[in-house]
C-alpha cells in the first residue's frame, strides 16, 4: 500500500517534469533556452519514472526482481551521462556557428 503510494508519487512527479519540459520546448523564445528544458527536465522525468517502475516491480523481493530493478537504475545512469552531454554538444555547436543568444525585448525565434 505504502509502496503503491510511493510509486504513484514518483510517476506523477515524473510526468509533471516531462510536461514542463515539453511546454518549455514549445514556448521558450530561442535555441539555447529551448535546449534547457530538453536537457534538464527530461533527464529528471525519466529518472523519476524509471525509479517508480523499479520500485513497483521490486516486490515480492527475489533475486530476479532486484536484478531487473538494478537494470532500470543502470538506464538512469546512462541517461544521466548521455542526455546532458548531447545537450552540451548541441549548444556548443550553435555557439561556435555564431548564433546570438536571445535577449529581453527581442522577438521570438
Amino acid at each position, binding site marked *: 500500500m505504502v509502496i503503491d503510494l510511493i510509486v504513484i508519487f514518483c510517476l506523477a512527479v515524473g510526468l509533471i517534469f516531462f510536461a514542463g519540459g515539453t511546454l518549455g520546448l514549445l514556448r521558450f523564445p530561442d535555441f539555447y533556452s529551448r535546449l534547457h528544458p530538453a536537457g534538464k527536465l527530461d533527464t529528471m522525468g525519466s529518472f523519476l519514472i524509471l525509479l517508480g517502475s523499479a520500485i513497483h516491480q521490486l516486490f515480492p523481493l527475489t533475486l530476479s526482481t532486484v536484478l531487473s530493478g538494478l537494470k532500470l537504475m543502470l538506464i538512469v545512469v*546512462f541517461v544521466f*551521462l548521455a542526455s546532458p*552531454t548531447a545537450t*552540451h554538444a548541441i549548444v556548443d555547436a550553435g555557439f561556435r556557428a555564431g548564433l546570438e543568444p536571445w535577449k529581453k525585448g527581442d522577438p521570438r525565434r
Partner: protein
Amino acid sequence: MKTLGLIIVGLVGAVLVSATVNFPPFGDPESPASLHVSPRYLEKTLEETAVPNAVTSVLADYRGFDTMFETTVIFCAGVACFLLLRVPRRRLPRPRQYRHRLTGLTFRIKEGGEVFLPLREFEPVDSIWTPHDFIIEKVCRYLIPFIQLFGLYVIAHGHHSPGGGFQGGVILGASIILLSVSHSLRTALKRMGEKISALFSPVGVFIFAGTGVLCLGLGYRFLDYQALATLLPVGPIMARSYGILLVEVGVGMAVMGTMVWIFKNLASRGRYDEGL
C-alpha cells in the same frame, strides 16, 4: 522533361494507391498470410528450432536465403561506396600539419615535402580547425565500451528477445562512428583501420554462406542447420538454434564493417586522412 517525369510519377503513384485498395485490411484474420503461413511458424518454431523468438527463427532459418542475400546487398553497398569515393593514394604526399606537443607550434609541410619528425613529440593535426571538447570526449570515451557490450548482447540474445545480427551490428558500427565524431577520424582509424572494416563485411557474408555450404557438404540441404548436429554434441533441434547464432554473428560482422566502411569513405571524401 519535368512534366513528363511528373506524369510518370503520378501514374505510378495512382497504380500503387489503387493496388493498396485490394490488400486485405490490416490485421485481417481471414487474409491468406494469416491463415496458413503465420500460424505454422508461430506454432512450430519452438519445437522445431528451440528458439522462442519467432522473428529470429523465421529470418535466419525458415527464410535464410532472403537474409543471406540481404547481407550480400549490404556488402555490395559498401563496395559501391568504396569504388565511387575512394581516391587512390597519390605519389606525392598531400600538404599536412604537425603540432609540437610541448610548445603547441604548428608546422605545415608542403605538397610532396618529406620531413622525418620524431612522432613521439609531434602529432598530426587537421587542416581545418576542429573543436575538441573535454566533456564530450571523456563521456564518449567511457560510454563506448558499454555501447559495444550492449551490441554484442543484442547479437547473442536475438534468440530470446528483440534483436539479432542486423541490430547488434548497427550498434557496434555506431559506437565506432561515435568515436570518430567525438574525437577525430584519425582516432577511429587507429582503433579500426580501413583494411579491418573492409575485411569485416565480406567475412560476415562468408560466414553466412559458409554455414550453408557446410550443411551442403554434410549431406543436407543448403542452410539446413540440422546438419550441424553431426559436428556438435547436440540434437538436430538445438543444432538449428546454434546454426542461427552462427549466421547472426556473420550478419553482425557484415553490418558493422559496412557501416564503418561507408562512414569513413564519406567523412574523409575517400582520402582517409582527416574528416569531421
